[in-house]
């Protein structure tokens, strides 16, 4: 049986060409459509289960690849850790039940028994051999699969590129068809969209043509002349419009900071004073003129620490570093919590909650 399966796999993976290729692609597409129709046919009550299990399995990939032991020693370490966690948790529950319900001996007894069991697990961990082999082979194969998963994730997510576009087409298409006020803006949207898309694709097409033509031949010169015209048009659209528009958009903020500095930033509270003082010191400390304000102080020795750039640098590597790390710890634990909730589909937010 295994040999048949193996030869089938070889036969399927065999690259096809010409008519056979078209047939295989058609066959595969029909298979795909059948799969989609089958998906549509799944009754309502199983749908949430399908989504949850797909999410769970997808989450297993990177977590197991990282968490599973790589060799016998680390396998024993894993069992020891499971014992240690069991010990800590059961001690915690034992303490909690003793405090909450002092007379409940039976409850306390259960947790104490759990404590003993966990210590046993931890203690005997180093003698276990058998479980190591399957776990380590699984984790190694997951690591070797990582490039394939990375590759596929990039390709399949690229298919989603049109998601946002369809939406924009809907909005601007409606504006153009109904001639609503300012419809010419939406028309400009379509012109811009197709202009850069077509010029780009033609540029690729020309370049692939040039790659096949033999340099110096007449066909080559005509195609390369067309290619230079096309890439010049592309440069006009790309550097002339797209990059200029985006960088000008970004630079708008400088103006908004200027007017915000003047109108919006008010020292309403002592906290705002502290923030503003720190901000001003950092701003002056980083730029050349700022540093020259305190350039009269000596270069080294105690007083050199009062130079503006020194204070500014100390603020950055001292208090600021501690604050950013504290915020970072909070966000990291938050990300772990959110990861668990998504992976185990515990998320009760309005999105997952509805009947799928």
């Amino acid at each position, binding site marked *: 049986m295994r040999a048949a399966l193996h030869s089938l796999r070889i036969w399927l993976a065999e690259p096809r060409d010409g008519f056979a290729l078209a047939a295989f692609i058609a066959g595969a597409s029909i298979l795909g459509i059948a799969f989609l129709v089958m998906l549509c046919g799944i009754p309502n009550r199983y749908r949430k289960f399908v989504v949850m299990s797909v999410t769970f399995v997808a989450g297993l990939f990177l977590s197991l690849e990282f968490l599973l032991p790589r060799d016998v020693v680390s396998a024993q370490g894993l069992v020891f850790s499971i014992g240690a966690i069991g010990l800590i948790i059961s001690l915690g529950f034992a303490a909690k039940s003793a405090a909450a319900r002092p007379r409940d001996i039976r409850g306390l007894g259960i947790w104490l028994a759990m404590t003993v069991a966990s210590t046993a697990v931890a203690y005997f961990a180093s003698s276990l051999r058998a479980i190591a082999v399957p776990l380590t082979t699984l984790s190694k194969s997951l690591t070797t699969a*990582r490039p394939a998963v990375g590759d596929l994730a990039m390709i399949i*997510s690229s298919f989603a590129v049109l998601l946002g576009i369809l939406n924009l087409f809907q909005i601007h298409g409606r504006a153009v068809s109904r001639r609503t006020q300012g419809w010419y803006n939406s028309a400009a949207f379509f012109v811009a969209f197709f202009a850069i898309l077509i010029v780009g694709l033609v540029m690729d097409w020309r370049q692939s043509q040039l790659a096949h033509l033999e340099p110096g031949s007449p066909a080559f010169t005509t195609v390369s002349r067309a290619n230079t015209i096309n890439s010049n048009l592309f440069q006009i659209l*790309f550097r002339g419009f797209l990059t200029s528009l*985006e960088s000008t958009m970004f630079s708008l903020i400088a103006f908004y900071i200027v007017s915000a*500095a003047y109108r919006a930033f008010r020292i309403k509270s002592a906290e705002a004073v502290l923030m503003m003082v720190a901000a001003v010191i950092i701003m002056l400390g980083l*730029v050349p*003129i700022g540093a020259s304000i305190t350039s009269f102080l000596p270069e080294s020795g105690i007083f050199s620490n009062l130079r503006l750039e020194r204070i500014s640098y100390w603020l950055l590597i001292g208090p600021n*570093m501690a604050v*950013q790390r504290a915020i970072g710890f909070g966000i990291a634990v938050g990300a772990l919590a959110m990861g668990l909730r998504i992976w185990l589909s515990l998320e009760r937010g309005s999105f997952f909650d509805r009947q799928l």
Partner: protein
Amino acid sequence: MGVFEKLQNLDRRILYVLLAVVVSAPLLIRPSRHPGIVLSEVQSAYNAVDRVSSDKIAIISTVWGAGTEAENGPQTEAVMRHMFQKGIKFVVLSWDPVGAEITYRDGSRIAKELGKHYGVDWVHLGYRPGPIYAVVSGMAEDFQRVIDHDRFNKKLKDIPLTRDVRSHRQIGVVVEITPSGTATTWIAYFTQPYGIPLVYCPTAVMAAEAYPYLDSGQMAGMLNGVIGAAQYETLIGLGNSPTYAAAAAWSLSAAHIYIIALIFLGNLGFLTMRSRNRVGGRAGR
């Protein structure tokens, strides 16, 4: 209206024009004097790049697009110039379609200037859409398969520089040039697990957040915005040539003093208004 009231509600468009005036002088005079001091994280960034051994290549990962070219552009050019000068082979991997085009154009300009050749001294891998963690974690194990081709769709195995780059073992340093928080993905999936130094070139807004990673050694060095680029230029021998980064550093000085004056002015009016506790909608809003 007294002087105070006039100072209180300057038309914001006057402020905008004043900004252009304040900023313009250094940009036009093009001073060649670079900022005097070099922060220690810029020096350690230089050392991390300089120490890359000849049998390894560097990855310059650019996440920026045209929007932050004014900050990330000089950083990218300074690092590329340093690698060309030192003969360190590098690949550029762009996660923004617009940035891919700009970094290629800058790279080829510097390569031509320093007589370096595409495919031998440097390769541009073009744009990858991500998800970044999937591509980066996959790349660490099998570089050829995940990246597969360069910006001209030429297979990596046919390009001399990337022919024998198999996985993370052939990578000597990762330089992450970004306006957003993508460095943590490199730390989690590439540089920290495999012990590869990460040089971080953020826009200034992201710099303050990175100091814990410098303190813990997860980042080998950092270029803080265009000031970091200007300081890096002094380390690679551009100390007295009139570069954009040097001019920008002096323009920045003027702009900062202008902003601080505006904050002071705005609050001066606000405080006097409040002390005179005049009834008035303006102070309340």
